[in-house]
């Protein structure tokens, strides 16, 4: 008899809720765990490709320098300032989300509505910031050879060294002429390699014309920031995958916000649905903390 009682009293024999959580909340946690594996793998792939890159990787401080207003009106570079603002927006929206959950625990419908509305504002603001950042990442700084490349006649490319055109020169990156500096090359070499419109009357490299033809911004095959195309590809994929999560989080938040406004949760007697979408929203913030570190800081 006592053995049977022990079995009944133990937590895992069935008929009890060992996790003391509802089905929906558990499933959200399990989903987030699997999603955490996805993002971990993506960021680890980023690390592997970056640290095994045979050519120098881009320096984030020189890539993400645009701040709305400062750049357009005053032409001021503000390295990493905008991504700092994005991080702040996402953390703040996480706080309003958790405040909505807390208000739900007190059945305080008015505050749930208020804080969920602010969370939605934060989500939209973050997406708008990301659109701005992507736009400037893709467009780039036009005609600047600082990190740009010139396509040469033999199919290879020449790239300005890190110190810039004047200091480091413009060096052929691969092929038979690898290592040749176009600023010190003979005019015979230049004529074979450089398209005629990029040469001056005396046969030297026309830096101005070359800059005009240099790659600006980021594409899937070439970008002005790093010779390794993986830099832009990984940026697009990982921040894009995160942005998709933010967008779907905003959609979920909006659906639950409408339900709260319609009094669905009040009728149900609890606001657990707010808590479940809250978990998802905090996860989006959590991922951004890692993306921020690995893409912008390191």
């Amino acid at each position, binding site marked *: *008899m006592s053995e*049977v*009682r022990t079995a*009944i009293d133990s*937590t895992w024999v*069935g*008929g*009890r*809720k*060992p*996790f*003391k*959580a*509802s*089905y929906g909340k*558990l499933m959200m*946690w399990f989903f987030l*765990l699997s999603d*955490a*594996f996805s993002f*971990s*793998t993506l960021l*680890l792939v980023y*690390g*592997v490709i970056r*640290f*095994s890159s045979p050519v120098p990787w881009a320096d984030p*401080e020189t890539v993400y320098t645009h701040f709305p207003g400062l750049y357009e009106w005053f032409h001021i570079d503000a390295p*990493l300032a905008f991504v*700092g603002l994005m*991080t*702040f927006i996402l*953390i*703040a929206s*996480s*706080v309003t*989300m*958790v*405040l909505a959950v*807390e*208000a*739900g*625990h*007190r*059945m305080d419908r008015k505050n749930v509505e208020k804080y969920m509305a602010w969370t939605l504002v934060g989500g939209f603001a973050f997406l708008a910031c990301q659109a701005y950042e992507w736009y400037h990442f893709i467009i780039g700084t036009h005609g600047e050879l600082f990190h740009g490349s010139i396509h040469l006649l033999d199919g290879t490319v020449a790239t300005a060294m890190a110190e810039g055109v004047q200091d480091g020169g413009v060096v052929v990156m691969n092929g038979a002429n690898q290592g040749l500096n176009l600023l010190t090359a003979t005019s015979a070499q230049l004529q074979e390699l450089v398209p005629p419109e990029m040469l001056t009357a005396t046969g030297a490299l026309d830096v101005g014309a070359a800059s005009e033809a240099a790659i600006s911004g980021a594409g899937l095959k070439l970008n002005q920031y790093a010779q390794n195309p993986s830099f832009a590809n990984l940026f697009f994929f990982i921040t894009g995958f995160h942005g998709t999560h933010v967008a779907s989080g905003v959609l979920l938040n909006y659906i639950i916000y409408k339900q709260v406004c319609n009094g669905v949760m009040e009728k*149900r*007697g*609890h*606001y657990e649905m707010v*808590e479940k979408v809250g*978990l998802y929203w*905090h*996860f989006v*913030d*959590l991922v951004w*903390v*890692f993306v921020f*570190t690995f893409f912008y*800081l*390191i």
Partner: protein
Amino acid sequence: MANAQHTPGEFDNDQSAYTHPDIHTHHDEAHGAHVRKNIWRVFWILFAITALEFVIAFVVGRGLFRNVTFILMTVVKAAYIVAVFMHLKDEVKSLIFTIMIPLLFVIWFILALLIEGGFYQGGWFGY
């Protein structure tokens, strides 16, 4: 004997948990004030760590020390978000372990890459 007697409710297997879960879904105003205070405390901690990261990004030169510092600060921020905002620390132990233990696979993955990566790069653990 197989049909051991039990009092109703002892099994707690009624479905009310799915329509009206009592666990962590309701609290009173006094507890709420405490929770809110903690939320804002964590916000300021996250804010301060992020601000410090910016200072380090511009003051400390690139290198292993800076990267390790950034990663440690990131892990601290992540811990606060998971523990307080997602209130995992208020859940029962079995749920905490169910979520945290599988993440060891990520650590394993990192170690595997660092060790095997040395084959190509002559890196961390050498070959």
